[in-house]
């Protein structure tokens, strides 16, 4: 595992292969929001690719989903660390 230098920026996961979000229009403009545009996950469809910082066995690394295509993947979202369920 490659150790990544850890800066102080608030690094976060990012969806890959998408155009940059359009500049926000006036508040009453039709809501062609990036929320809707970005929500592409559906059964039978390609899994949206992304890159995200990760913790793995004592170290920090980056995970790109498509780098693991070729295997079966179980992708699990959950509300938060230190929650109870």
């Amino acid at each position, binding site marked *: 595992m490659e150790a990544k230098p850890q800066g102080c920026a*608030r*690094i*976060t*996961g*990012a*969806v890959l292969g998408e155009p940059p979000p359009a500049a926000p229009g006036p508040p009453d403009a039709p809501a062609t929001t*990036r*929320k809707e545009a*970005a*929500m*592409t*996950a*559906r*059964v*039978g*469809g*390609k*899994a*949206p*690719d*992304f890159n*995200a*910082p*990760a*913790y*793995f*066995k*004592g170290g*920090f*690394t980056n*995970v790109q*989903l*498509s780098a*693991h*295509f*070729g*295997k*079966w*993947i*179980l*992708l*699990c*979202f*959950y*509300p*938060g*660390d*230190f*929650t109870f*369920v």
Partner: protein
Amino acid sequence: MSAVADKYSELQNLGVEVFSVSVDSHFVHKMWNDHELSRMVEGGVPFHMLSDQAGNIGRAYGVYDENQGIELRGRFIIDPDGVIQAMEVLTPPVGRKFAESVRQIQAYQLVRASKGTEATPAGWMPGDPVLRPGPDLVGNVWKVWKPHE
């Protein structure tokens, strides 16, 4: 997530890679592993714990809750072609059942191995009979499968 960590070897045996995602930073993931999960699961969390602080990934998968700023319990089974075969999304108070994820993975692996010639009926478990959709099966499912079995 501790339930998945605890049974991780079952998934490894099926050749499944696991990624967990939340809006916590990867630094907090480390603290959660070190201070709590490693006390529930021998050796700590065995899979990558991803950070999605801005909710970008969660939005792409339709599980980001804008009002609460958290990600719902979304579970996705992705096949080797990168295609989502199954998804399950629960609101926060109810946890998933790990065994059901394993069952679905096993069913999809069977279907894939058969190149789509086999299908699994409701409630199928490994070892149970499978269905072979085709002209001979039309109207004859009752001969090979009944709901109470």
